[in-house]
Structures are given as C-alpha cells and as structure tokens.
C-alpha cells in the first residue's frame, strides 16, 4: 500500500489516519515486535524509531525509551532486521524516524539502501532541515524512499515554501513549539497552520507531538489528514496500561463523524 493510498483509505472511512510510533529495541529485543502487533490493527501507517544517544527533539518519555533500547545493544542493522519483521506482518506504509548522525555514520547510500531493502516506504528526519543537505535528500529519494520533514507553529511562510516541496511522503506538522511528549490539549491555531501548508503542497499533512487522548486526536483530525501518537503509547507501556485502550480512544477521536 502506498502512503497516499493509506491516507486516502482513512479519509474514505471518514477519519484522519492514525500513525502509531514504535521504537526498535523498546521495551526490549523481541518485545518490540509484540508492541507492533498490538498497534498494527489500529494503524494506517507506522512510524519506526531508531534509538539514538542524543535525541534533541524528544521529550523525557522517548529519551528514556531510547536509552533503554540502546542498553539492549541495538545496532542500526538490528533496526533494519526489525523493519524486515514488521514488513512480513503488514503491507501498511512504514516510516523510519532517525536523527541524521546514524545516517552519516553508516554512509547515506548504504543506510538508505539497507532500509529500502528492509521494506520502509520513507524517512522522517527530525534534525535535518532539507535545505541543509539537498544532496542527501536526493540520495534518499533516488534510493526509492519518500522523505518527510517537519514544519512547526513557528514556521514562516518562507520556511513552509522551502520545506514542503521536499516532503514527498507526508508533511509532519509539529503541534507545538517544543519537544515530543503527550499533552492534554493542543494549542489553537493548528487549522490555520495546516491551511498555510496546504497552500504550498498536495502532500498529506499529519500532526504530531502531544496526541494522547480523544480531545487531542479530535483537534488533530479537525486540522489535518493524520495524527502521530508516540509518547502516549510508550508512557502507557511504562505505566503497565494496555496500549489498546489508548489506541481505541485516539482512534475514536480521529473519526470525522465525531467532529464538533
């Protein structure tokens, strides 16, 4: 299934697409795949995180998860193997979320080739504004990967014009100025921000950062084509709550019939 088809199918079913986040090696080797199996039935697309030592854009929950995964001795090759296993379970679009240094360490061409072969559809690069290294973005696209970059409430018209055309997968719109982490409520102004982005690109727009419950999911669905849920899932796991409960609630919030 392509990325566009996944978003279109959710839309046809009257809801915004749900994009859960899982991290390779979290909570442990092997148990990461159990988390995948729990979230997959609710997912339209899946975001797969590569654990990193210095996750600058992440709040405490994903930082802790990264540290835990790295303590398991997870290497880039293990992440590719994890993706391969997920791919054997589903044909839904998979997006690898990675900071840029692991890409540079492995070598961009080798890295992109490895993950294309493993079965990801695209990449999310949270610390690479695409105009910083258009050549690297070109290599990713040349390897057959879609690319997704972030836009934010602070983004100026000029930044939107620059970044959006590089988003061949979808546009990842950050809900707040801040780092990842579950929030009770999203700020006002998301529809206006997404509107500004839509004027520049046809690509689907997903909202991320802070989606945790029905209210935040509703806010995201009112503004955009999809919602990413990450920290709230990891927190639910940390607290020994079922992921399914959170996923059901968020998925319900994404139903357009529930729009207020």
């Amino acid at each position, binding site marked *: 299934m392509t990325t566009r088809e996944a978003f279109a199918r959710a839309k046809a079913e009257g809801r915004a697409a749900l994009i859960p986040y899982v991290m390779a090696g979290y909570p442990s080797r092997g148990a990461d795949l159990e988390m995948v199996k729990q979230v997959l039935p609710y997912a339209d697309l899946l975001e797969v995180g590569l654990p990193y030592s210095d996750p600058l*854009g992440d709040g405490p929950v994903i930082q802790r998860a990264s540290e835990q995964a*790295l303590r398991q001795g997870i290497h880039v090759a293990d992440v590719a193997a994890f993706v391969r296993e997920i791919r054997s379970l589903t044909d839904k679009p998979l997006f690898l979320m990675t900071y840029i240094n*692991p890409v540079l360490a*492995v070598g961009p061409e080798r890295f992109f080739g490895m993950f294309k072969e493993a079965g990801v559809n695209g990449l999310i690069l949270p610390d690479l504004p695409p105009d*910083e290294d258009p050549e690297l973005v070109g290599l990713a696209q040349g390897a057959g990967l879609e690319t997704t970059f*972030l836009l934010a409430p*602070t983004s100026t018209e000029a930044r939107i014009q620059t970044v959006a055309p590089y988003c061949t997968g979808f546009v990842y719109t950050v809900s707040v*100025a*801040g*780092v990842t982490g579950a929030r009770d409520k999203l700020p006002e102004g998301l529809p206006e921000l997404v509107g500004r982005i839509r004027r520049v690109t046809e690509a689907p727009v997903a909202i991320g950062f802070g989606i945790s419950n029905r209210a935040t999911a509703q806010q995201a669905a009112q503004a955009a084509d999809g919602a990413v849920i990450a920290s709230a899932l990891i927190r639910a796991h940390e607290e020994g709550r079922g992921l399914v409960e959170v996923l059901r609630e968020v998925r319900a919030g994404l139903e357009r019939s529930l729009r207020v």
Partner: protein
Amino acid sequence: MHLPTYPLPDAKGRYAEFGGRYVPETLMPALEELTEAYLHYKNDPEFLAEYDYYLREYVGRPSPLYLAENLTRHLGGAKIYLKREDLNHTGAHKINNTLGQALLCKRMGKKRVIAETGAGQHGVSVATVAALMGLECVVYQGAEDVRRQALNVFRMKLLGAEVRPVESGTRTLKDATNEAIRDWVTNVRDSFYIIGSVVGPHPYPMMARDFQSIVGEEIKAQLREKEGRENPDVVIACVGGGSNAIGAFAPFAYQENRPRLIGVEAAGHGAASGLHSLSIGAGRKGVLHGAKMFLLYDDDGQIRPAHSVSAGLDYPGVGPEHSYYAEAGLAEYVGITDEEALEGFQLLCRLEGIIPALESAHAIAYAAKLAPEMEPEQVIVINLSGRGDKDVVEVMRVMEEGQGSRAEGLVQGGQS
C-alpha cells in the same frame, strides 16, 4: 572597537562542509532572526560602544600579554608569552562571549537566557552577565556534574541563576546541551540561548568567534609593542569546543603569512585507551548540537562520551571552524594526556606563580614540548584561557591518587 569580518562562514553558515543548521525545524526562524540581529548590531556603533565599555570596565580588558621569563629560561628555546585571559572577571575567556551575547539578547528584547554548562565555568559566566543585565537565567548541568561541581553550582545560585540538573544520557555536558536546546525549542519566542563555545547551529560559532577575536587582536597589538612585529611564530591554545582557541587563531588564520596555529585537544588516558576528547585527532565527520564537525561516535552513529581530567575539554565534538582549519591545514591539532596536563599545571605554578586552569594546562604542556626545539628569537604565545582556582581540589585528588607522581618529580627536577 569593532567586531571583525572573516571570509567564512558562507551565507549558509558553512565553513566548507562544516557547520550549518541541523536543528528541529521549530528553531529555524529563530536562527534566521538571530543571524539578522547579530549582523545588524555588529556594525552598530552604540552596541559596539556598550560592549567595549563592559569589556574594559567590567571584564578588565585588555588582558596582559605577559613574558614568562622563568618558563622561557627553564625550557631553553623560544620566548614564551602568556595571554592572560585568566585575569578576566570570572577567571576565563568565556566572558568575552557571554557578555556580547547578553548584550545582543537585551537588544533583541528577550528577558530570559538559557545556558548549558559542564564544570560550571560557562554557567557562572552566563549567570554573571545575567545578573549584570537583569535577565532571568536558567542553566542546565548534567546531574553527574552538579554533584562533582558543588561550588560552581552554589556560585550560580548566588548570582541568581536557577540550575537544573539533567538526568538523561551520560548526565554530562553533551546532555546538558541537549536539554538547553530542548528548552530553547519550547521557549523560543521569549528566550535567548547563550551557547558556551564555538559550537551549535549557525550563527553561534560565528558569533562566539567574533566576540572571542578580541584575544587574537590584542595579541597582535601587544606583540607589535613588545617585539616590533604582529605575528608570533606559534600560537598555542587548548581546544574543547574551541572558543578560546578560535579567538586566538582567527585573526591570524586567514592571513597569508600565518604563524603556526596549534590547537591542543585532551588526550585523556591516551588515544588508544578510548578515554579521551580527541574530536579532531580521533573523530570522524558527524553532526551534534546543530552543526557538522569532527566528532566522536561509534559505528552506528551513537555519540561516544568524551573524557578529560579537565571538565572544560570533556566534549565529544569540536567547533566547525576548527574542523575546517584542520582539514584545510590552516591549523594543527595535537593531543596532551591527563598526566602531561598535570605536569604543565604544576610547571606554571612553580615557575611563574600562576595557577592555570586544567584546560589551559594542556596548552602549556604542549609548549613545554615545542619550545626547546625552537630558537631564542622565535616567539610562542600561549593562550592562558583561565585560572585554576576551580581545579585545585580536583588536582589534589588526582595527585593523592598517585597519578600525579611523575608530575611531582618533574617539578622537583625543575627546581634543582
């Protein structure tokens, strides 16, 4: 007073391929705004007059260029001058930069400053200028460092700063820097991030270099007076992130008749041990804290913790402009081990009555190797980036552990 203009970085903040802005998109507009403000104020006579006023009246500039006669005689080669940044208010070169950035922060109408700190030197320096300018100040420090550097934590609190311990990662400087950047991403609309070295996304390495360039420019003027020539034969400075070194190097680096510029990285327990801070000596090109630079990381790109006996050099990366100098051959970068640095530390104490910062002791230790091979009419300038009061407890601990025994022998040998 002026702030210098150099051929690099280019408009995108690059020193050849190094530098740039590898940051969450949320920060990009703020970095553009900061660049614009800085480029405006660096030519604004009022801003420059205010900066100059505080440098003279508050920091105590110009700092002396002191001929270290005893050290020169002891080593028996080139003539050695010390650029006395240790005599600045707060005891190091750091304040040249923090003062400039705090003044810029005020001009930009921001009321809150954020900083990261390792041992606490930069944190104290930021807390100091924040007190002076009436700015709210939050300093992030790794939980491990908060424990080890209780005195500097108390200093920052005395100066009115809030110190936030960082529990993530290795709980040291690199993690404190991550957390400071996360705070900035969250509070970007009303906060100003004062970064502590020539690292971080553009325009930070450029700004910090320009504010530190006063060091090299004073060296030129002072040498003209003392030696009748602007250029020494060698300039030596320690390199953590690289701010004191770039301040001493940049005014010379782009000239045709360039002196030898030697940056001294911390070799810790030695290159082979893996316990070192040799970002240029043993690192590869990578991205940390918003810039491409030489960096210590493993085969998967995970950042490796750095090590040095001196907290200020204990950083896994190095500024993009140094990365460029190294690759282009404009400067040389060498390593000095913990043990050698402790020798340099004691050498300066005994011979000149100056207790240097452990960071600066790395530069002294390298000069001690180089000077005897040079001629008496040749001149070495060592950037004495800071004073060692902050380090005496650590040096005592290390010497009592016996690691300093060789160093003691050396000092005794020097006396006889």
